[in-house]
């Protein structure tokens, strides 16, 4: 298996979509609350499974793709992820936003659909709920007059680990 597709949400991906994925293992976690906090915190167990599979195979997954199925539509094209070689310490995002804050354009990744290398996933899958929701601290966002949202929280976490964000 080259790819790991980690999905969370109320529903699983449609069969018609899943069966067309080659060399891809899917781990689904049913999560009622699909906020960023809950969804990232729910990656702990899939992260553990991923590491154990890699340990047994003595090989890392080439890419780990995250999809919140509650936001998955027919138009969601995750095939772009499969064409990429994932660099370590980079998060690849579909549907990203670019906002001009503090003298430059910043990329705010989607919190619902993204991909990264196996090693980067080792970091993200160990985040806990208490690492989010510190909205009052985002002075750089407040100063810009932006409304603080989940995308800023995710951006902040990634920056804390020097994880580069790349929009596709």
């Amino acid at each position: 298996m080259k790819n790991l597709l980690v999905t969370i949400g109320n529903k699983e991906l449609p069969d018609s979509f899943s069966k067309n994925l080659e060399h891809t293992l899917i781990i689904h976690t049913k999560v009622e609350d699909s906020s960023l906090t809950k969804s990232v915190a729910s990656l702990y167990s899939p992260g553990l499974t991923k590491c154990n599979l890699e340990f047994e195979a003595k090989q890392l997954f080439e890419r780990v793709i995250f999809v919140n199925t509650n936001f998955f539509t027919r138009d969601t094209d995750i095939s772009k992820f499969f064409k990429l070689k994932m660099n370590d310490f980079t998060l690849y995002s579909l549907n990203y936003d670019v906002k001009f804050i503090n003298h430059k354009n910043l990329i705010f990744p989607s919190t619902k659909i993204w991909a990264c290398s196996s090693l980067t996933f080792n970091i993200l899958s160990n985040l806990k709920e208490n690492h989010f929701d510190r909205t009052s601290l985002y002075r750089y966002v407040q100063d810009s007059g932006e409304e603080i949202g989940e995308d800023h929280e995710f951006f902040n976490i990634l920056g804390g680990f020097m994880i580069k964000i790349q929009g596709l």
Partner: protein
Amino acid sequence: MRRFAFTIGGELRNFKTSSRLFEFYKEFLMKNNIEVDFFGCFWNSNYTEECKKLGYFDFLTDFTLEDVPDEGIDRGMPPKGNYNNTGKSKSLYNWSYSCYRSNYLRKLYQLETKVSYDLISFSRPDIYIPFSSLKGISIDIHELQSSILNATDFTIYTPPIKKNFGYKNGTDYHLHCDDLKVVGDQCAMDVFSTSFHLIYIKNDPSYVGSYHNLPAFTIKKYGLEVRNDCSFDKKWMILREDNGIDVTKDMKIDKEYVDWLENR
């Protein structure tokens, strides 16, 4: 109540003494309102079998016994020292492997029980924690969230990491750090313990994971914080004797441990 997890791994050496010291650490820390759990990954050997029969594993919360990883042994080389039964090790392959495996058991236990740890250590099994350091841990762990320590997640407590350039007659590669033990908060150790994936499964040809280098490399690569301003980073020692305590010639053995062993 605070919670501390010892994760230990590698070849069992001098375990008759060290297992009893682990029991001391547990009793002492529990008296100071700290729950303690132990998780281990050790290599099969006659000595391991003997230790198991004699009940030296009874203090462990969970453990696994495995054959020594072939990749981590220098085949054809004689064992190193009196207590090396499973063969001379090659780089920190087995260190990293047993760190991953013992912490994997710890994570499974946590998923099952929902407990969380304030602090986690990883070390080899033949370890001696100077009593002053143990006392320091028992005090500082209660201060983690206070203004004294003001600890943040993803922190490893270790002596300063040095760039080891121009070190005459040195055998280490670039980064130098303490590889006898690693202590960190749960988030840090969750990430740190996947170093086996980072160094050996990844097999990137652009760096070396070796003695005194691997922990530092993992900390830097994964972007973990480093602190060395409290008792958690203080040096631990290696036990050199299986019948009583022998650490180094210059070190005074703690009376508390001698009394404990005599009364067991």
